[in-house]
């Protein structure tokens, strides 16, 4: 019976491929979103689209699309959202999502890919009385009926939800650009990183540009709740980076960390992980469900948030394990990077519990000569990697648990299968 997956099951034949279910939507996401980043300056054009021209897992858009399919039809306000998606108004049809809310000659965000909707600054601009706006079409009364809601079949994704998936990818790419400069990474996804290709400053500015365009697109979705959710992620990302810089105290020197100190180090690590990785997935998924008409007091957006948060943390924990295990060519970026950056992740924190001498190394962020090698060998001696993997499995299982409150269907099954994939991946 669907939904009864156990981790011992080695047969993946009955498990749907989550990516296959929304393959055509996924393939459109990147090509379409590069459209939004067009600029008159050819160099900026190049930087902004740089990370989108290389293959990517597209995990975040996947979660959004799947949740859209798994919940569209269930929310109280679904009928009015469905109605709106066919209207020529903000938050309406796909082509209307690029309509600016202010006049083009006010915004002056010229985009050669959107020639009719954007404009270049005109020095001869003068003050003129604006036209009174036309009335927007209002939903018919039938959209407010209170009959029981059911999952839409066949599965349907609203234009706004597609656009949200693109916005989330843009926010993610912008954060990668900044991270690669901060971490001084030479490679990303097997090629030169943006700072290596364009220099530090322009990689940073490229990230800001993408963020600006993404935020404008967000406003045009016309949903203040979603705007607030995604905007808060932008803050979360950098605050997670700052949290990561916080010193882990090892006040007992060489002793086994007291339970309080160990607990502090762990909760800080998980909080940082949420801010940097899981927040975007959790709030992205929640936003998708809100766009589908889930109202306050309905469970669907809580399910989405809980799923995203748990799977996001699981994903990062596996990432941290792979940093210790994998070799450069499967990862696409150099392995062993975390220790080099002075970061104590799951395996190191577990190793600390088994080997007290790890404490001072963590505290000084592996900065002395020989620290990195010693730390690596201590982790290897300990059960750090296995225990981190087990924790990832626990989080993934939790993600699967919260899905059980959704009605069964292909999209829900795909989301369940995704929790397995996140754990089993090798890169």
């Amino acid at each position, binding site marked *: 019976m669907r939904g009864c997956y156990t981790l011992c099951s080695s047969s993946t034949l009955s498990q749907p491929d989550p990516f296959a279910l929304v393959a055509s939507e996924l393939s459109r996401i990147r090509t379409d979103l590069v459209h939004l980043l067009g600029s008159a*300056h*050819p160099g900026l054009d190049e930087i902004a689209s740089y990370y989108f021209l290389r293959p990517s897992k597209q995990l975040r858009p996947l979660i959004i699309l799947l949740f859209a399919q798994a919940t569209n039809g269930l929310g109280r306000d679904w009928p009015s959202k469905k109605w709106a998606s066919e209207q020529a108004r903000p938050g309406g049809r796909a082509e209307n999502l690029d309509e600016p809310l202010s006049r083009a000659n006010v915004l002056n965000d010229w985009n050669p890919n959107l020639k009719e909707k954007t404009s270049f600054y005109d020095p001869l601009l003068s003050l003129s*009385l604006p036209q009174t706006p036309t009335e927007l079409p209002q939903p018919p009364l039938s959209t407010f009926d209170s009959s029981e809601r059911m999952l839409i079949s066949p599965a349907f994704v609203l234009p706004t939800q597609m656009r949200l998936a693109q916005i989330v990818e843009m926010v993610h790419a912008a954060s990668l650009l900044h991270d690669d400069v901060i971490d001084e990474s030479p490679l990303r996804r097997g090629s030169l990183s943006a700072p290596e290709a364009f220099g530090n400053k*322009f990689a*940073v500015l490229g990230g800001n540009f993408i963020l600006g365009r993404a935020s*404008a697109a967000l*406003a045009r979705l016309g949903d203040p709740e979603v705007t607030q959710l995604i905007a808060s992620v932008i803050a979360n990302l950098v605050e997670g980076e*700052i949290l990561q810089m916080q010193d882990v105290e090892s006040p007992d020197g060489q002793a086994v960390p007291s339970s309080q100190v160990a607990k502090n180090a762990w909760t800080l690590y998980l909080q940082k992980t949420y801010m940097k990785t899981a927040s975007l997935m959790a709030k992205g998924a929640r936003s998708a469900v809100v766009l589908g008409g889930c109202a306050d007091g309905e*469970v669907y957006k809580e399910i989405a948030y809980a799923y995203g948060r748990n799977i996001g943390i699981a994903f990062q924990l596996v990432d941290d394990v792979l940093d210790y295990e994998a070799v450069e060519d499967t990862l696409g970026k150099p392995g062993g990077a975390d220790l080099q950056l002075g970061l104590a992740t799951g395996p190191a924190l577990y190793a600390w519990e088994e080997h007290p001498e790890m404490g001072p190394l963590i505290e000084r962020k592996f900065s002395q000569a020989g620290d990195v090698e010693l730390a690596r060998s201590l982790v290897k001696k300990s059960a750090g990697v296995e225990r981190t993997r087990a924790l990832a499995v626990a989080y993934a299982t939790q993600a699967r648990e919260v899905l059980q409150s959704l009605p069964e269907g292909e999209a829900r099954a795909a989301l369940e299968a995704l929790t397995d994939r996140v754990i089993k991946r090798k890169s």
Partner: protein
Amino acid sequence: MRAWPSLSVCKNSQLIQQCRKHGVLAHNLKAFIPPRTTIINTAELHSPRLDPFVLLASELDYLRGNLLRLLGSAHPTLHQLAQHYFTNPTKQIRPLVVLLLSRATNGLGDGWEQKKWIAECERVSGRHEELNRPLTRPGVLNDCNPNMSDDTASFQSLFSLQTLQILPELPPLPLSYKTVDTPILANPPIILPAQIRLAQLIEMIHVASSLHDQVANDTSAPSDGTGNKLAILGGDFLLGRASTALSRLGDDEVVELVATVIANIVEGAVWKAGNVGTRVVSALSSPAQGWNRYLNEIYLGSASLLAKAGRAAVILGGSKEGEIWKEIAYMYGLHIAFANQVRDSGFLHYVND
């Protein structure tokens, strides 16, 4: 340790004394109560010596104090930024324009009564200042939605499905609020909290882009690690908070305006740099094209911010589509920025505070 600034730079002597006493910039500043707007008598309007900085002195000091407090509370590393900002304060021209335009137009827009009402409700319900929330706040729930709590304690266990809740809505505008046919300026003049927040976030965006502007491009130079990282993280931190605050203003039009400013500023910087990456910018074919490019760079790099910030302020005061007030604000911001930039002459550089 740098010398403290003289009194002529920072007008609030109480602020300076407190900083000196505690030797630390922002941590020990008490919470400021939002300032009451200075009321002037109309006879003074005709005085040639009306100084806008004096008119809005308490608001500007409030904004500067908040920004310091925010930077100081984030992380020890970002302290350096707070110190730098304290000893090299900006003239706050941008917030000044936002606040002046607010004061000059509040009451005129069709939606003014609604905006005033919302501000009153928020004041009574004790809505928190999201913008100034310190970075680490142990044990305090995310005050916007407890179902998405991200404080450290919430990570002690796996995250389970949260109980449902319905967030309270604002009460509707009472019928006793009259709408007037001829627009009248609000008297006594007031500035809405939302407009003050806008002024604050505009300044944050400006400081953030100055920081990012300082990032060194060369990746092969021996890095001292701290310089670039501080500039990037500091700028990002301010942009992140500004984005959150912007979204909480609750107006899509305003979000769109400010978002395009962020993109415009980058475009301005890139045009200024000339060739970036592998693609080449086409050479100028005529003096007219040269002028266009020059003026466009000024627009992107500085005028866009002032024009759109002014427009946004007036929108927050309830100016509706079809009214002229926000057009006036846009034009004012646009032209004052151009005047400032061209006055500075030289060639193609940003407004220096």
